[in-house]
């Protein structure tokens, strides 16, 4: 049970319970404002009835031609509200808006190859690995997980407009591109 509502600039004053978690980065205010000033309809918050923030998603629409797609830049749920289907609901909103408003061909996202929880979650939501991006998170240095820590999977889910399902390829995990090749 949660309120699904638009992300507002003033939510930055209230997202500590989500952002103090190490897996969630706190960016400069310009980052949030740039998303809100372009794709406010792809940014939303889940809130408890008490008014406490539970999680949020920030997305955008980008690409040209058949690559035109919705992109999940950040999705996060505070630790105490995990496994309540919040991520699932936010993803489906983002997919719906990408499809209906932006007329996108697919939705995609990047996830650390080592983030098994997230990868499995996205797979359940019908995303699949489209390619592996070398050193996408490279600036963080190689951690315990080695290459899986710094490489990202680009995962995609086709929308109805992708009639030929070009955003799915069975051997996605083996297709490797460098971080320079992606935006």
């Amino acid at each position, binding site marked *: 049970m949660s*309120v*699904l509502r638009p992300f507002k600039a003033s939510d930055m004053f209230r997202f*500590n319970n989500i952002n*103090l*978690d*190490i897996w969630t980065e706190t960016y400069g*205010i310009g980052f949030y404002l740039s998303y809100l000033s372009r794709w406010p309809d792809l940014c939303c918050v889940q809130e408890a009835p008490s008014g406490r923030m539970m999680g949020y998603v920030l997305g955008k629409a980008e690409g040209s031609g058949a690559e035109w797609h919705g992109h999940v830049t950040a999705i996060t749920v505070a630790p105490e509200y995990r496994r*309540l289907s919040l991520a699932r609901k936010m993803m489906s909103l983002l997919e*719906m808006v990408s499809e209906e408003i932006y007329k996108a061909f697919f939705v995609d996202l990047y996830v650390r190859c080592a983030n098994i929880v997230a990868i499995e979650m996205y797979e359940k939501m019908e995303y699949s690995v489209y390619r592996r991006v070398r050193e996408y998170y490279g600036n963080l240095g190689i951690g315990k997980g080695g290459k899986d820590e710094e490489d990202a999977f680009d995962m995609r889910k086709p929308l109805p407009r992708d009639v030929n399902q070009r955003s799915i390829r069975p051997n996605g995990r083996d297709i490797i591109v460098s971080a320079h090749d992606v935006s």
Partner: protein
Amino acid sequence: MSAAALERQIRPIYDALDTGSNKSAIVACNKLLKKHPKNVLIKALKALALIRSQKVEESLVLCDEVLQSKPIDDGILTAMMHVLRGLGRHNDMVTMFDEAYKQQPTNEDLGAQTFFANVRVSRWKSAHQIATRMYKQFQDERYLFWSIISAVLQAKDVSTPPNMRTILYQLAHRLITSSPTPSYVNADRFHLHLTILRDLKLYEEANKLIDSDIGKSICATNLSCNEIRRDICIQQGRIQEEAERAEQLIVEKKDRNWLEFLSVLDGAVPAAVSAGTANKSTDAGANINRVQELFTKVAEEDASKDRSAALALLELEKRARTHGLSQDRSRLLTLLKQYFEKFGDKACCFEDLKPFLELEESELAQLTSFLEAVPTSFTTVSELRRLINSYKILRYTLPLTDITEEKESARVAAYVRFYFEGLALGDGLPSSELQPADDLVLLAGNTYVSLWKLTDGDCHLLNAVYLLEFALIKSKQSFLTRLILIRLYRLLGASNAALEHYRAMQVKQVQHDTLSHLILSRASTFSLSATGDITLSTECLESTQIYLSNSQETGDFIVRAFTGEKYSQIPEFISFEDQLDNSLQRDTVKIEHLRMRLTHEPINSDLIDMELIELKFIFDRIHYDNRDFAILPNYQPKLSEGLHNQTLLFSKPEGDAWMMTFLKVYIRAFQQASDLDDTVEEKLLIGDRPKQTADFDKKLSLRDRLMQRDPEHLSSLTLDEVKFVEYAHALIDWLEPYHNHCRPPPAVVLAEAAKQTELKTGHPLKGIDIPPLNGNGHHKKSEEPPAIHEAPEVVVKYFDAAKSRFKEAQSKPSPSELLHVATLAQEAYLLLVTETLRFKNPSVVKIHKLGNLVTNFKTLRSDALSALAEISSTLIKRGESDGSSDSRHLCMDHCSSDLSSNIDHDFIVTCAKKICDSRKKVLDGVGKGIDRLRTTYA
């Protein structure tokens, strides 16, 4: 030289500016200016390079020259836009663009720039006019919408009188209806349209839009539009329709947005009792039954997949009770139990149920025995969570009679026991994960604090520290554990240990505004600035970077939202910018930083003048409290004060009252010590004067406002702070006439300022006529000095009283209070130094015949110095003893057997050592700092 050739020569200046090589940009400009002394673009670029090298005065001279030439060239305007922004002269920017646009009314880009310049200074009326003109000229509908939202924003501006608001909304309405393309072509235009209709209460028109197919489809895909739509429906009382719509979504679309459930609930029975809704009980009863059936069905369907329907049933029953419509007294309890059975293993179960725990005694007793029966043995995370949730609810609902030392001790023992047992369930988790048993530690932390409050025994705080520190080894990323530790270490006077944890949380960006209170409230108590260790004052400066980013960046995004026509975001961005710019925490930190600065930097007129101007700006603005206190994991009984209040340093909040009290002290003190009066300040001010946003009686003068004392404000001060403030005002009142008598007249002050500027920049200060000076610059007053009075008693006795308070505080095991008394005495002395600075100059004293006054200072100073000597040496000695192994053992002896049987002895040693070392460091540092200041200002 041809234009192209000149352009080639100017290119490198741009390159230098782009790469931040301001020095070489200046050199290049100078070279070119020799050949082209009249070239305005080069001057503008030089002004930019100068401002970026912090050469403000020099830049100003060029800037004024360029502005006088009324530039229209795009390159010059762009360069000047950056210069003026750097100087904080947004008003000049408006004028510059206004004039350029007037000369080139067909230049669309210039029109937009002029519009944005007005937007940046919130001049909505002019913005509206420009947009209107642009729409006529360029026929782009975007400009029509710019003019519309400008009118709306003007209506919303606090400075707009209420009767104007409706007129402006009506104007906006007329314009939006006149749009050739309907607003629904774009969700954000549609949003703006609905906002206007809502605020004008034009519901019929709004309904037409909302109920149209396209309107429906926009609201179904756009959360912001749907928000307004819902608002409009509720405002006009279309509650039943809204409920039906929501029900359909819940049933057919399986929508589980809590807002939809609320709509259904509102349709059945309102949340609160209001007049006029009382006599519909039969209807309401039937409604409640129907909705109950609906929710029950959904809850069964969803089972444990979604909590919405189960919670909606609770909310329904709660509302029924409020209205006296509950048909079954036992129902609430049944629902609570059912909810717990179903979702007791979700981490948020306690939080979900919190609003429904207002129970009668007998109900509470039943719930309690139900929860007490939750098994305390567990083999899965689910079972452990269930136990934790039962503990949280039980604790939350405790009656006051059950909050006793004995019972709290028993509780803490249970929490601790099951925490250690629960650790087994988290064995082998990666170090980035949190232990499932962590909340038991948080519960224990809360309980130790409660015990400390009950008994005043610091041993409970120590035990809390041992346990929480241990828990952090097991859950390295538990920021909730750190939050409690930060509070505890400050209470224990181990400020460095608190800072370590704060830093480990990696607070950044906007979080500085909401969280820096954790470490910076009353931070001057622990500051070692006087010894040259500027850790805490640096922390203050770092935390204020965000306000700079805000003023540099947010405006750009407001402009972007206009360009991208995201009208729904514009008012949000504006209020965000405002809320951050006028943050209470920002100015609280400013005061703390000032208090530290005075111990670290020489107190002289430069410091005093600069601080004075800034403090006066702060005094004139409204403050927003963005501090996040809800982040603290509060698991205290609902009848208690709560963890936040219990763990406040010195049990006193900081807030608007605290900040305003200290602000008044320092503004008054600096006003006296400074030669800047208002007329001088006006002349010397570089950027725009910030708007006066504070809410005060505009008939009052600044002095009146500074003299106002709100007795309620004193309640957020500690007793020692109250004494300090009394002393400060008495001192200031006493010396006011003498300062006024001696202060050189404005003309003399300005002449001196002009001289300094000319020495620095080679240019005279503009717009100031320097009167001929007579003699040595010391003006002689013909009138007699005011009668000399002895120092008031409050002032004379202050340091004696501080000494005895200091003795008293020595008996406390934690040195925090001791440091508080000591640093306030130090501050009082520095205030005396500031206040008497003017009279240090023997010729001032002689000319103004104030010899008798100055004798007074001598006794005051020597009293203060001897008190500070005693305080300083005692602190240093106390530091020795608090840092000794005896003290460490004493700390360790407090470790309870619950803990010592589970935590390695060496670990306790390390913790105790950390506390003792940290105490020693701060005591020794503050002691030595006081000593150093005694010598500096002997």
